């Protein structure tokens, strides 16, 4: 028996009961086959890509019916959280571009979605003799955190951005580590059956990570971008898809793959402003494009977007930093210095702001 701090992820198909009722048995089985194949492809590739040993050593996962369970316990909780968030986004993206959903999209019906619940907590791993007898040597994982995560996942139907719900434990850890570039909605206190008390649940409202697309299995990467682009042309695109798509455009712009990608990105970004409820990240992306896009470079527009972001989130470090840089580039040294000091007021360890203030002080 061994206790571990694990990050637990539960994912399942939303409205699967309704789907089972409406589809023929063969169609339902085809859909489940498609779902399970994609989950297997994404999770196994991801764990291998990020160096998990698997086999119960630092991770464990299983698929049963329309449900996926992933346990990560590499002894680096932040690494596990980041990977759980990546897996969650990747399975949603892969399912969105699946054959099943592409067919649904072509018929202009609502796509099937995956709801995800993630949480951290202590679990106990134990190898059950009876399981060994039937050839399953991997440990059995138990704990209250698992039950809680399952219930958090069931709340994903009420989400309206990513439909990735997290518990308080994971939320707190993400607040402690700014390297996991994730933001959450305000908590919803939900009472779950059998728990008898209100549990705060947070929805992921933005998760900016360049590795979502780049670490996808090769078998799923072909045509993936085009499929996502098709999705955002849909009448009711999911908000999170815009963030993933815009972030991948920025990577392409950075590696000079396509010289006109900034024009496309700007267009999608402006479309996203109308769709995405959580706007700060979209403002920041638009501001970034106006600074770094060759065809759309406009520092005043960039400043305007970062200002919009700060209007919604006055402490948004990314917007503060970019605004300070623009002021510096415009030759407004005093204002730039003030902007850098503003960053230091809320984060004294901010490396760029510290360096810049030191430079200003030595120049005097």
């Amino acid at each position: 028996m061994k206790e571990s701090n694990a990050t637990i992820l539960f994912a399942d198909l939303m409205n699967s009961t309704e789907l089972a009722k409406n589809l023929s048995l063969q169609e339902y089985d085809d859909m489940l086959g498609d779902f399970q194949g994609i989950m297997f492809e994404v999770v196994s590739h991801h764990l291998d890509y990020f160096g998990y040993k698997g086999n119960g050593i630092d991770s464990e996962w299983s698929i049963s019916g329309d449900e996926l369970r992933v346990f990560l316990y590499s002894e680096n909780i932040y690494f596990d959280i980041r990977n759980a968030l990546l897996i969650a986004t990747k399975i949603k993206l892969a399912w969105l571009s699946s054959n099943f959903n592409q067919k649904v999209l072509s018929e202009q019906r609502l796509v099937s979605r995956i709801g995800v619940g993630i949480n951290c907590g202590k679990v106990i791993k134990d190898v059950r003799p009876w399981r060994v007898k039937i050839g399953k040597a991997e440990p059995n994982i138990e704990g209250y955190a698992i039950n809680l995560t399952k219930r958090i996942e069931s709340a994903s139907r009420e989400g309206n951005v990513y439909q990735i719900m997290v518990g308080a434990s994971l939320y707190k850890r993400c607040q402690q580590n700014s390297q996991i570039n994730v933001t959450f909605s305000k908590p919803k206190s939900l009472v779950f059956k059998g728990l008898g008390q209100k549990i705060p649940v947070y929805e992921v409202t933005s998760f900016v990570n360049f590795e979502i697309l780049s670490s996808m299995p090769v078998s799923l990467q072909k045509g993936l971008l085009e499929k996502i682009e098709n999705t955002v042309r849909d009448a009711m695109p999911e908000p999170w898809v815009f963030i993933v798509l815009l972030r991948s455009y920025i990577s392409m712009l950075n590696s000079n793959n396509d010289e006109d990608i900034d024009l496309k990105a700007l267009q999608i970004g402006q479309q996203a402003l109308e769709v995405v409820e959580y706007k700060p990240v979209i403002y920041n992306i638009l501001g970034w494009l106006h600074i770094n896009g060759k065809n759309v470079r406009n520092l005043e527009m960039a400043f305007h977007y970062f200002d919009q972001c700060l209007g919604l989130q006055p402490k948004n470090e990314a917007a503060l930093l970019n605004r300070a840089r623009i002021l510096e580039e415009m030759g407004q040294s005093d204002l730039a210095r003030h902007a850098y000091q503003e960053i230091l007021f809320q984060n004294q360890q901010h490396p760029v702001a510290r360096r810049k203030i030191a430079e200003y002080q030595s120049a005097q």
Partner: protein
Amino acid sequence: MTLGELPTGGLYIDLGLGIVVFLLLFYEIAVHHRTRKRIAEFEKTIVTFQHDQEEVLKNLEDKANTVTNMLFEKTKPLANKLNELSKRANAILERSEGFRRELEDKVGPLQAAIDDTNAKVNSSHDAVRKMVQEGKSEIERMAKEVKGFAEEIQLMKNFIRDGTIDLEL
């Protein structure tokens, strides 16, 4: 038959023939006499010639002796010089021989040293060639490794750059 008995016509012919014979005999005697006289003269001339010849030979001998003496006198200093030259030539030859031996004595070890060096150079060359061959594979392996590192570093750079962008959005 007598003259009177001879027919008148034939008699004259016989007489004429007798005169001819007589004349021929007379002529022969005359010729014989002249020949004997001329032979005697010739013998006398030969004796004179032999005498002259002896004299000439004697003169020639004298002259030859004189010339020999004269030549001897004249060539005597040349012979001395020739001897001297011969001595010098011998001395030069001896010196050359000495020099050759000296050179051989010196060249011998030098040649051995050169042979030794040559062998060493050949051996070193082989060793160097082997080393270069081995070095080449090593360098190729290292180049691959460096390329791998460069790719790894590029990946890390991309990762850091993209990670930084994530935080600025």
